């Protein structure tokens, strides 16, 4: 393009845009005219009318914030309540001698220096007709003393408002979550009108997910005020509608017992009802107290929680991602049967496995080997070599598919926010996320639930429930029903079947469930010790997941390894075998072996649920 044309273009462009700018300027002036005309109309032409209206403007709208719905467990044990908090407020323009009044009040309630400083600051900066808080959070005694003597101090009033309270300290925090003050961030995405007069909003857990149900509807009170804005009488009102009460499927007693059974182990216990997908226990250890979060936790306390090496803020049941270890084996067995593997065919286990053309040994947990193993025995005795061989035969794509079918390595869809998917690894995934090729050895590790494979305790429990259901995969749910506070009408969250896994093969389920039953009740089952004396028959699978790699030719020696590098102990189970009422997944971080640590915990949880709480368990709420 030659320069001449460019300059010509430039000149024509300039003329065009300049003409548009002139048009825009005219438009701007026109719109300013509209604004000025409107202001003239309101302020000059109709001034008399609006002046009168403003003089008589004594009717004000006061928001009546709704009462937030409460949260209960399946037996009606309260998990989140609203408790009244009393405060003393003073309206400065009704007080003649402020110092004398403060003196009188201080004889009824204890006033700290900080409270006085805050109050005096408010006196200086806020208008005199506005009531200011002098002290909040009065004790019952102070409330009583003040009420008895209130007539001595005109213009000083006792007010009550509701504050969220979580009665079990931290026991339910990983399910219920908490509310907190509405932040700038929240303001941007909520309908502010709906939150007029409301100070709190759900931040985490059920409180966050069911915010719309819990909130309720704001009401208004039309009040007449005097010239100073003080309320004289109420003209009319539209009542607020209380938020719905939520009843969870959680059994609070069971959940607290489950956490107690974990003892000092960090980890999670998830128990579900297979038939409905109802979550019975959703314990994550350790816990933290949500109550300080309601009014805003101090940044120092929050930093302490964040930096705690035990990571109490982590909801392990929902967000903890673990290698499933041998608990994956029943699901791979299902995949094997589905792909036509003959369950009677045996693999010889000499205690290790090698890939052809490689000297690397993949060890079985039993160093001396299991001998000839068929599918049944390989599950019962948790033979690694059998599953190495199986993994090699099926290939990683089939293994991944077998996991995903049972909901392992993908979100379960539970009614809590922030659920991770975990990982059912494939070569494609590795290529995309790491830019590396898949090695055959990684398929072998995946065969026993090691390597890249990651699942959450919730996924494990739901997958176990799917086997218990013989293929019916349910949507897990925390909330059982909402109850309208005024009418009492319950609104149930219907159980929802996600899919039928391998529905045409009852025979496959029979084989795998038989093997899982023999894990506990068979002569050579890996967890037979923990089933001793059980009043019901149950099915399960142990798992032990490596936290650190053991070098070739080295032995795993628990005593020689620092605690945080010890193996994670896992166990999945459902009971009773023929009429499953409960499915459980237990993960005890650094707990060592699954049979020794995790299986007894699961047994206690099932005993509690199927037989009843042992006497030793203290449970004041159900007493």
């Amino acid at each position: 393009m030659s320069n001449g044309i460019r300059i010509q273009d430039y000149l024509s462009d300039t003329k065009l845009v300049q003409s548009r700018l002139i048009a825009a300027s005219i438009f701007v002036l026109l719109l300013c005219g509209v604004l000025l005309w409107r202001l003239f109309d309101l302020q000059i032409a109709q001034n008399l009318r609006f002046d009168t209206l403003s003089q008589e403007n004594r009717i004000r709208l006061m928001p009546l914030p709704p009462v937030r719905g409460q949260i209960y467990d399946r037996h009606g044990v309260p998990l989140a309540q609203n408790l009244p908090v009393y405060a003393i407020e003073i309206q400065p323009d009704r007080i003649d001698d402020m110092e004398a009044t403060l003196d009188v009040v201080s004889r009824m309630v204890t006033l700290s220096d900080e409270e006085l400083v805050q109050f005096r600051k408010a006196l200086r900066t806020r208008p005199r007709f506005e009531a200011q808080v002098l002290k909040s959070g009065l004790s019952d005694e102070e409330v009583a003393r003040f009420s008895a003597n209130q007539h001595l101090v005109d213009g000083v009033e006792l007010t009550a408002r509701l504050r969220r309270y979580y009665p079990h300290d931290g026991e339910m925090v990983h399910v219920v979550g908490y509310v907190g003050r509405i932040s700038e961030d929240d303001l941007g995405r909520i309908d502010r009108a709906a939150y007029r007069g409301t100070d709190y909003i759900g931040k985490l857990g059920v409180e966050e997910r069911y915010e719309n149900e819990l909130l309720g509807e704001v009401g208004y009170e039309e009040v007449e005020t005097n010239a100073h804005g003080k309320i004289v009488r109420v003209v009319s009102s539209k009542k607020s509608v209380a938020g719905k009460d939520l009843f969870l499927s959680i059994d609070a007693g069971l959940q607290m017992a489950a956490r107690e059974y974990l003892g000092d182990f960090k980890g999670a216990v998830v128990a579900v009802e297979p038939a409905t997908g109802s979550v019975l226990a959703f314990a994550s250890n350790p816990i933290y107290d949500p109550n300080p979060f309601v009014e805003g936790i101090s940044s120092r306390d929050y930093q302490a929680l964040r930096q705690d090496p035990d990571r109490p803020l982590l909801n392990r049941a929902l967000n903890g991602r673990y290698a499933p270890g041998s608990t994956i084996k029943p699901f791979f067995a299902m995949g094997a049967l589905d792909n036509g593997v003959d369950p009677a065919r045996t693999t010889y286990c000499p205690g290790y496995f090698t890939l052809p053309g490689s000297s690397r040994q993949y060890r079985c947990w039993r160093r001396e080997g299991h001998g000839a193993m068929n599918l049944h025995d390989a599950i019962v005795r948790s033979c690694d070599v059998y599953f190495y061989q199986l993994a090699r035969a099926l290939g990683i794509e089939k293994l991944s598919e077998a996991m995903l079918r049972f909901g392992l390595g993908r979100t379960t869809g539970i009614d809590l926010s922030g659920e991770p998917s975990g990982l059912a690894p494939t070569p494609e995934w590795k290529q995309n996320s790491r830019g590396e090729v898949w090695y055959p050895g990684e398929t072998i590790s995946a065969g026993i639930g090691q390597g890249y494979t990651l699942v959450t305790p919730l996924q494990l429990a739901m997958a176990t429930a799917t086997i218990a259901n013989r293929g019916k995969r349910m949507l897990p749910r925390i909330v059982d029903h909402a109850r309208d506070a005024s009418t009492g009408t319950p609104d149930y969250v219907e159980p929802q079947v996600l899919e039928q896994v391998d529905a045409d093969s009852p025979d496959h389920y029979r084989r795998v469930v038989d093997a899982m039953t023999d894990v506990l009740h068979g002569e050579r089952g890996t967890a037979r010790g923990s089933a001793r004396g059980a009043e019901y028959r149950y099915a399960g699978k142990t798992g032990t997941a490596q936290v650190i790699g053991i070098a070739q030719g080295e032995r795993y020696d628990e005593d020689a390894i620092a605690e945080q590098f010890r193996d994670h102990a896992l166990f999945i189970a459902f009971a009773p075998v023929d009429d499953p009422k409960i499915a459980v997944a237990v993960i005890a971080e650094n707990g060592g072996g699954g049979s020794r640590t995790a299986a007894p915990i699961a047994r206690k949880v099932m005993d509690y649920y199927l037989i009843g709480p042992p006497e030793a368990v203290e449970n004041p709420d159900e007493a």
Partner: protein
Amino acid sequence: MRLERAFRMDAPLFLGLLALGGLSLVVLYSAGNQDVDLLYRQSFRLLIGLAVMGVLARISPETFTRWTPFIYGFGMACLVLVLVVGIVGKGAQRWLDLGVVQFQPAEIMKLGVPMMVAWWLTRNPLPPGWRDLGLAVLIIGAPTMLVVLQPDLGTAVLIAAAGVLVILLAGLSWRLIVILAGAAGALAPVGWLFLHEYQQRRILTLFDPWSDPLGAGYHTIQSIIAVGSGGLSGKGWLNGSQSHLDFIPERGTDFIFAVFAEEFGFYGGIGMIALYIFLVGRGLYISFYAQGTYTRLVAGSLSLTFFLYVFVNIGMVSGIVPVVGVPLPLVSYGGTSMVTLMAGFGILMSIHSHKKLMPK
């Protein structure tokens, strides 16, 4: 003149902005119930804004031209990031609002979109052909949709408006403008169905606020009463009864003009609007005499967008525009938008102060 040469500042714009900032502090003192802390914070924001303006004014327009695609790309990347992280961030983090400077990518796009559209359209002679128009619509539409998803409808509309203004300035044929306006009018009923119920109510009550005096019309009515009762010369500073008895919602932010009009009356209103016309006029003047089509389009769009904010806010307060969350530029308290607006003025100053003797 020395100011202009040393800092590449434009004296009329600079003085106009200072006047507006000062006026903001005066009104805020009243609207915020004489809260001095509030004034400190507002002054602090103003100073940050002025600093940003000063820095941008020293950057040459050629640099802005060159950087336009990167600014736009960076803004888009941030918008996508916000959507992704916004979902993950739903945890214990949210409550931690320690007042750290928050960064809103949507704000970048208030400048990035008009710059990018101008950059794209000036690659070929104006008026733009169909192909360039189509791409311009994409340049505007993509970030707009991302902001709608956040969801922040108000900001999305403002971003789109800034981009569309560039297209209009670039010589979109009048016939097409009329046709599109007609089509928009015809499609409005369809859009209506996509609005939230509370948004529909806000628009309905615009036509007759007294139809629901204690519900959706309440804010509008109280705001109109405040403005109307101000009369010719107002009730006097700190004496607005409507404002001080808490009848005006969000009186420090979106409805600050109601406080101003009640206390300073019609004269005050004329004065403030005149100040805005002066700023917008100066911006359009800079645009008119800009060197280069890109800078002309950007300067024009920035000036007109600024006016749009003013019109929508005052129109909303006086009851001729639906209640949307648009603050009165540079007068309303706070908002991340203050820095963006000042950045816009910085670009205007840069365009004006870097003119060369010879046309290129």
